[in-house]
């Protein structure tokens, strides 16, 4: 599979000179499988340029895998060009809710006064699916979702192709008021999604000194993300969901802290940036851009 980051900012798009190296678009990651199928992880503002590129070679079918429905993860839907092509079939997967269907919840955003076009008026054929607890095959990959601790129904995604695993947990506070080290693996939120991942894209929103002011907000600090990656035996940790107030320089300081905190326990740690491209196949993991 080829993984490409189109947006890795958290909470709110943050364009500008101070965020140009890592980017200001909110969560969106494209995964092109060996079979040619395309999975789109989240629909943040990074989905707009992704849609432009996908329309260079229009596909009849694609899958959008949402982690949750906060605005920074769905705002790009209204600007995703494949959705405005009548011959396209887009599958949208997302977290189940006991209250409303996925379609009804998305329609809250995709309707006036928040958005001029109603979900029902979008030309493409859309099929909605609840995030599967069991493995589902799409092309050459299997996908699986699992609930994780965040605000509101939220899932992480595990994508496996030929034994290689991408785990995507963009919004995740693995423990709240509990020492992460005190928990057995089976009690660790997200562990079943992330264990032995070759690439783990994980929430790294706060510095450790910022976290006490944000306990319970649903995001990780550096201690969380490095501890979680170590416990999950993730080979490559990609710090994701950058705080909109963090400049490029701030992020690089956080990366230094993360590397020191993780020590030798995580093979490779880096910051997600727009355009980051990772090949994950039988030959291993290669960061190609």
């Amino acid at each position: 599979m080829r993984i490409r980051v189109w947006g890795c900012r958290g909470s709110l798009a943050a364009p500008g000179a101070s965020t140009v190296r890592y980017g200001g678009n909110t969560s969106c990651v494209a995964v092109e499988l060996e079979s040619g199928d395309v999975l789109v992880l989240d629909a943040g503002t990074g989905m707009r340029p992704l849609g432009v590129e996908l329309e260079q070679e229009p596909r009849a079918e694609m899958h959008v895998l949402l982690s949750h429905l906060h605005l920074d993860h769905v705002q790009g839907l209204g600007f995703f060009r494949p959705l405005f092509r009548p011959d396209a079939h887009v599958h949208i997967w997302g977290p189940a809710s006991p209250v409303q269907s996925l379609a009804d919840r998305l329609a809250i955003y995709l309707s006036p006064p928040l958005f001029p076009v109603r979900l029902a008026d979008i030309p493409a054929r859309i099929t909605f699916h609840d995030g599967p607890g069991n493995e589902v095959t799409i092309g050459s990959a299997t996908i699986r979702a699992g609930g994780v601790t965040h605000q509101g129904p939220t899932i992480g995604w595990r994508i496996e192709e030929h034994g290689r695993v991408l785990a995507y947990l963009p919004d995740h506070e693995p423990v709240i008021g509990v020492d992460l080290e005190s928990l057995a693996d089976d009690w660790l939120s997200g562990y079943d999604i992330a264990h032995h991942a070759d690439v783990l894209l994980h929430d790294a929103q706060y510095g450790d000194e910022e976290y006490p002011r944000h306990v319970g907000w649903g995001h990780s600090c550096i201690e969380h993300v490095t501890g979680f990656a170590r416990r999950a035996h993730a080979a490559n940790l990609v710090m994701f969901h950058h705080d909109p107030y963090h400049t490029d320089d701030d992020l690089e300081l956080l990366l230094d802290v993360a590397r020191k905190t993780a020590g030798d326990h995580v093979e490779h740690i880096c910051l997600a940036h727009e355009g980051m491209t990772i090949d994950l196949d039988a030959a291993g993991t290669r960061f190609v851009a």
Partner: protein
Amino acid sequence: MTATGPAAKSLPLILARELASNLSTPMFVLDGEGTLVFFNDAAELILGKAHSEVGEISGLQLGEMLELRDEHDAPMRRRDSPAGVAFYQRRPEHRTVRVKMFDGTHRLVEATAYPLFGAGDMLHGVVTVFWPINGTSS
């Protein structure tokens, strides 16, 4: 590479444990099979053992440890206990019960149990909270 991880606890159970861990009120967490999977430090004061020492035990074993009786000191069937009602009848229950403390004394407590339902009304487990009634040990 891939590997098989341990059977993960469901998110409602994980959140129940985090809640229990941060309360000073005794709280027991049973999973959807009726196994006691966690109790907090305050509950340790009833059982006399830490969760790390007890590990996961069946609801039956928990019932034997607590020797539940009703407020008139009559033995109580496990399915009639608040946790039993929540588990078997899938509804919340509150009543006064007499529990055996780790030191052999008995104490009246108010017990509240409720089922943890997730998506599709799946039963993820049962939470029981004990509210001590002061001055009732015997």
